[in-house]
């Protein structure tokens, strides 16, 4: 892993407007999905992005790829700000950043053969003609561990794990440097999850890929990531190397999240002191003032309600947003 920065996200904001009215549409509010997130992704690393549902982790991933245009902020990829690029220029940049989606049942067109799905990116981008693309499809299928003879089959003929391999092959078709994996394994059974994760790891070694790995499964994120970022209600609360996050979590939310994960070991479970958070995640339409986490935080004080905690580097490479750290 190098220290060369591949992607730099600065103060990324994405609000979704809430509209009301039948004829005269008026904006009455906004869902604060992502609210000022900054981080970097190094070349060749896997950055894990974790958080509970609705925390904005998927929106962050999509905003990076400009699948949702950010409300403000910048996403600098290979020296260019993607937020400001559009049209043909953005299309060309898209070759280098691809996505693997969560649901392998919904993300593949049921009327296209697997070969057409995987071959489409190279055809759309005009990189290869049909003949060459067929060759490429075969290559990609064997790369992800599927029989190249399957190119003429349709998605419904495959199991969930195999479909996810097809999704991976499609993402690899254009030789991207960055892949955003949006919960790529959460729809799969446990024994199949390991197959897909091992595949992603092998491909990274082989092709030098960089991953943004979005997931809610903290054990899996620990397994695959070099660095881990934790999000809560649209803000990033902590970002550090994997071991720092899991051994020395500084933010109270990270601590609670880690203690909530069950360990498949009855002896370890017996000894564990579990810290159980009270309450639920507030609505992102009307997030709490100051620190987003203060309503559930066991250590919250007055300042937490008044001021939003600054995103700062407490030790080299360990970022946290909390007044009390």
């Amino acid at each position, binding site marked *: 892993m190098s220290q060369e920065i591949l992607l730099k996200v600065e103060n990324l904001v994405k609000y979704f407007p809430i509209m009301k009215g039948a004829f005269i549409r008026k904006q009455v509010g906004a869902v604060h999905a992502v609210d000022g997130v900054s981080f970097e992704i190094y070349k060749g690393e896997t950055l894990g992005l974790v958080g*509970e*549902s609705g925390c904005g982790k998927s929106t962050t991933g999509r905003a990076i790829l400009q699948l949702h245009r950010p409300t403000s902020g910048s996403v600098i990829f290979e020296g260019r700000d993607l937020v400001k690029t559009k049209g043909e220029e953005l299309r060309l940049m898209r070759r280098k950043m691809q996505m693997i989606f969560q649901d392998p049942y919904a993300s593949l067109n049921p009327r296209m053969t697997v070969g057409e799905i995987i071959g489409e990116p190279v055809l759309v981008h005009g990189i290869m003609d049909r003949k060459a693309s067929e060759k490429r499809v075969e290559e990609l299928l064997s790369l992800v561990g599927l029989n190249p003879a399957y190119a003429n089959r349709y998605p419904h003929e495959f*199991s969930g*794990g195999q479909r996810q391999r097809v999704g991976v092959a499609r993402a690899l078709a254009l030789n991207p440097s960055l892949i955003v994996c949006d919960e790529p394994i959460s729809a799969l*059974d*446990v*024994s*199949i*999850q*390991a*197959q897909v*994760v*091992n595949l992603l*790891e092998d491909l990274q070694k082989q092709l030098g890929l960089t991953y943004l790995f979005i997931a*809610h499964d*903290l*054990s*899996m994120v*620990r*397994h695959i990531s070099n660095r881990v970022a934790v999000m809560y209600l649209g803000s990033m609360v902590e970002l550090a190397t994997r071991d720092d996050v*899991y051994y020395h979590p500084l933010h109270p939310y990270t601590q*609670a*999240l*880690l*203690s*909530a*994960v*069950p*360990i*498949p*070991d*009855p*002896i*370890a*479970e*017996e000894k*564990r002191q*579990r810290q*159980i*958070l009270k309450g*639920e*995640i507030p609505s992102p339409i009307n997030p709490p003032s100051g620190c987003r986490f203060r309503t559930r935080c066991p250590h919250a004080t007055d300042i937490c309600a008044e001021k939003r905690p600054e995103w700062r580097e407490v030790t080299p490479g360990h970022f946290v947003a909390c007044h009390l750290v």
Partner: protein
Amino acid sequence: MAELLQVQGLETQFRTREGIVHAVNGVSFNLKEGETLGIVGESGCGKSVTVMSMLRLIPNPPGRVVAGTAMYQGKDLLKVSNEEMRHIRGAQISMIFQDPMTSFNPVLTIGRQVSEPLETHLGMPRKQAYDRVAEMLSLVGIPNAKDRLNDYPHQFSGGMRQRVMIAMSLTCSPQILIADEPTTALDVTIQAQIVDLVKQLRDQLGMSMIWITHDLGIVAGLAERVNVMYAGYIIETAPVKTLYGDPRHPYTLGLLGSLPRVDETDRRRLVSIEGLPPVLYEKPQVCPFAPRCSHRVERCLKENPPLTQVGPEHFAACWVDTTTGREWQ
């Protein structure tokens, strides 16, 4: 501890357009008084169908319980009249379902739904039932329970709805509580809240419990004994510490190896079980796990191994002694 529930040779089939699916293929287990039993397995292994069959909740058609007995209080649950079964279900054996979003009736208030078991089973007048429901709701940690009785399910969040479901299942103080993946739809911090709540209530009320899940992590901290299911069979059963510390069936070994742990120190390659679980259009005649198994010997492709004792209270269905890698003599 006395045996509270004894299930013997349970078999359930579903008629589908493609043929008969053999979902459960002869499952036997006991539940002791005050015990928590975990049933784990991947989707389609028959873990939910097992308990649904026992409670006669399998829609017929397409489903049919073709064999087996489930003895509870000297009666076979599969043979008692529908009337009698209704008295047992909800009052003595109750269930929490997986999806708190779809298991409530959206057009009835929470008070109406949660009080229903009290009114039906105990014949409690509505007013009194509502008071009791308010008590139950505060017991499961719903703030201002009294004021929320007239709210509808959509006015509760997922975690809160699961709490309501728990309250509903406990209104008649059942002897056995069956939880079918009750936390799968919830976030991890909410999951921790719910698991903690159920544990507390279980100890407080002295219930026996069956907890069905695909998450080996949850069961580790909750159950006393665990059944691992695969292809409609129990393939291993043991006290919880034995199962995690000394798993014997290759499938259990693979399952535990494929799980990364949040407290893991070094990065190892995950054990992956190649291949897929079988689709059960025929009742397996050979070991159903054999095609995916790394310990496979010739016998596995000829005969289906029965559950055999491998240690104290520890049974596994495998022809191979996985500690030595050789066939049992």
